């Protein structure tokens, strides 16, 4: 569909604006795995903003569910529940080991031309392409 990429571009620009607000007001990068990491090892005075950010994500999700529920239906992908569990585990382990995910490295890091983030992003996109190739062959992905 030709409109897909327009929504993607607009959504991306909203994400770029959101991380800009975080930088302007709080002076921080919006790295979602890092924000969750900080909740798992709480430090005094550095936890509340992480919780409200996560609550904001969830609340945004509630609005999406109310006005555009089709954006949240992940069940249309016919994979087994075990693969979702394995995927979540790898994403959690890997993002903490690699110090970032799509938001921290892919958006914030690349925008400030961080060499670490450019390398990390190329690495996780390549690994993702490899995973889809393998799991399609194995029949795990439809």
């Amino acid at each position, binding site marked *: 569909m030709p409109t897909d990429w327009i929504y993607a*571009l607009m959504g*991306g620009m909203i994400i*770029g604006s959101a991380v*800009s607000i975080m930088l302007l007001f709080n002076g921080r990068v919006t790295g979602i795995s890092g924000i969750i990491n900080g909740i798992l090892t709480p430090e005094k005075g550095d936890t509340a903003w992480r919780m409200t950010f996560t609550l904001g994500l*969830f*609340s945004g999700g509630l609005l999406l569910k109310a006005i555009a529920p089709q954006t949240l239906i992940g069940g249309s992908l016919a994979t087994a529940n075990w693969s*979702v569990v394995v995927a979540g585990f790898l*994403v959690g382990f890997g993002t903490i080991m690699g110090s970032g995910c799509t938001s921290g490295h892919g958006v914030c890091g690349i925008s400030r031309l961080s060499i670490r983030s450019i390398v990390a992003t190329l*690495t996780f996109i390549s690994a993702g392409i490899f995973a889809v190739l393998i799991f399609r062959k194995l029949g795990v992905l439809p």
Partner: protein
Amino acid sequence: MKKNISSFAVGFLFALGLGLSGMTQPQKVIGFLDLFGTFNPSLLFVMIGAILVHFISYRLIRKKDTPLLHTEWMVPTKKDITPALIIGSSIFGFGWGLGGYCPGPALTSLASFEVRPLLFVISMIGGMLLFKWVDSFLKLKK
């Protein structure tokens, strides 16, 4: 207190950007990573949009001496390409390709109240905690 409010707003806006862009739909993410199959390039525009905005805003914002609500900038400055960065990003990317979720979209999708995002997030936190436990012995990120 104000920092918690701005963080909430950033999380909320971020979630809407994710929903509009298609990042909360695992089948689209997997379609994007399916370079050797039914490749759907639309999600490339999410990164283009986000980086376009933040590449410019980052430079404008950093001209200020301090953020609006904090005394100093808290932006990562590391430059070294470490084995942990590469291996961690590879593991993350592999899980991203299998499940179609990265951390932000998974947390946002909790609002669907479907079982898959919940399974993913619980497992993701388990993976994060396991890496942190392993790293308390091995110091892989040092």
